[in-house]
């Protein structure tokens, strides 16, 4: 474990020294993401001009929720996105070879090797908005509930990563260029909606099979409305299940890779 932390510190260090070389890209990314943040915040602000509540949440509560998913998105953009972008190319071109011969988990390497130092400023901006929305929230909250929220959001980021992996890993068998990643981006919008708006089979889909609602909406709800046992149980069960599925599919994928390549 300690070794993996040290390895990750190397990845961080490498990524920062690389990123500083490409300045235009650096500033462009910041501008692009700030626009994305403004659009998201504005969307709910405009809706709230016409109605006092969305899915039972007030303006202030909505902003806490928006802060939550923007934060998860920023974590994903900095920690995972570059790796997720390259993974299908590596699989298709048979370039996993060098990862498979190292005495280190190839899944760890391929998921975390490229930290997007370019997006790091965005992580700070999203973090600032997250805390702004919390301090702007007029109800009292304790330090403990804040820590709980952050843990749930980290768990949310992992869920986000897992769903993404499940859309990419079929590339092992289909040899298609991007797997089902486009589907991921389309359905991914579900993360940016309060989970109460999903009813019936949509609710089953987005809370169990493709649990986008568990990424930011459940954590926000636990923070705003208090933790109830069934929600926490649901979160733990689905997250663990998802993680085990990813590990299993990854293992099968590698098996297929090594028996198909020559």
């Amino acid at each position, binding site marked *: 474990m300690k070794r993996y932390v040290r390895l990750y510190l*190397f990845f961080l260090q490498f990524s920062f020294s*690389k990123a500083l070389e490409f300045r235009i890209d650096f500033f462009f990314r910041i501008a692009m993401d700030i626009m994305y943040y403004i659009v998201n915040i504005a969307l709910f602000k405009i809706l709230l001009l016409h109605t006092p509540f969305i899915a039972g949440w007030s303006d202030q509560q909505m902003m806490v929720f928006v802060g939550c998913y923007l934060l998860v998105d920023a974590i994903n953009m900095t920690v995972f996105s570059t790796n997720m972008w390259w993974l299908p190319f590596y699989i298709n071109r048979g370039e996993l070879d060098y990862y498979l*011969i190292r*005495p280190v988990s190839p899944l760890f390497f391929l998921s975390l090797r490229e930290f997007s130092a370019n997006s790091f400023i965005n992580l700070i901006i999203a973090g600032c908005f997250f805390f702004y929305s919390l301090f702007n929230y007029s109800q009292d909250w304790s330090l403990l509930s804040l820590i709980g929220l952050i843990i749930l959001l980290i768990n949310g980021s992992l869920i986000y990563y897992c769903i993404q992996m499940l859309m990419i890993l079929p590339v092992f068998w289909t040899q298609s260029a991007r797997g089902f990643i486009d589907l991921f981006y389309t359905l991914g919008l579900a993360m940016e909606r309060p989970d109460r708006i999903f009813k019936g089979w949509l609710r089953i889909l987005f809370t169990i099979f493709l649990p986008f609602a568990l990424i930011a909406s459940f954590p926000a709800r636990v923070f705003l409305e208090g933790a109830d046992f069934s929600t926490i149980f649901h979160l733990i069960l689905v997250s663990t299940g998802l993680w085990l599925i990813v590990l299993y599919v990854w293992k099968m994928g590698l098996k297929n890779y090594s028996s198909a390549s*020559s």
Partner: protein
Amino acid sequence: MLEVKNLTKSFTTFRKEPGLKGSLKALLRREKVIKNALKSVSFKIEQGEIVGLIGANGAGKTTLVKILAGIVHPTSGEATVLGFKPWERDNEYRKQMSLIMGQKAQVWWDLPALDSFLLLKEIYQIEDSLYKKNIEFLADTLMIKDQLKTQVRKLSLGERMKIELMAALLHRPRVIFLDEPTIGLDISAQKAVREFMRNYQSEFKPITILTSHYMEDIKELCPRIMIIKEGQFVYDGALSEVQKMMGDEKRLTVTTKEKTFKLSVPRSELGVKMSELFTANEILDLNIHDPSIEDIIESIMNYGIKTP
């Protein structure tokens, strides 16, 4: 020790006729083609031995190397390297093994080599003192000390190959698979890499399998060669013995007014063949010589072994 018994690898591909029509057809019914990359291969290599693996493109060299490096699962058969089954990817095995593919880079392009080496130090958990010693030794013998702090993408192809070698040998592996280490290098860089490998081999005594298209590499480094053809070994033995495999042949290089051509003739028929040549053509130049090792290996690769 490295031991391989009846190792077989086959995989399925699908045949598709060219063009859109072929694609549509393949959508409905795909034609399965089973390709046998390795057909029941067996051999043994002792610690400290360096063996040249020779074969045409697609003969199965890379497949064999990838199985032994643990990347590819064999279809059947056994292989043990240092007591491990490679494809089980035991960390203890991976720590003692190294694979160098001349056509694929393993160091990070945008960083100076020393940064990549630090990462490898962590990955292979190399002790500080051994790490320092190895860097010094490798950089000295490869004569690349001054380039270690330059970003790898700014280096020349030859320098990059030296960096790759350093990266692969930092953890002082006991088994080394070298796949085309001199591909694309100029003559002096090739020489430097060869010289280095020879010294490394005699100093640290790893098991090494070297594949190369350059006969020069093989001749300089490998006392023993294995020739593979369509997934099967056609020769496994001393390089110096390979000449005997061809029996008593002579090569003729004949130049007439129209063209220059080469002939292979058994020694006993040399006289008859020559008089035939002289009656049929106006000969400007004639050269008789023993076949070179390159000639012999090429002929084994193409036609198999002729028994004298």
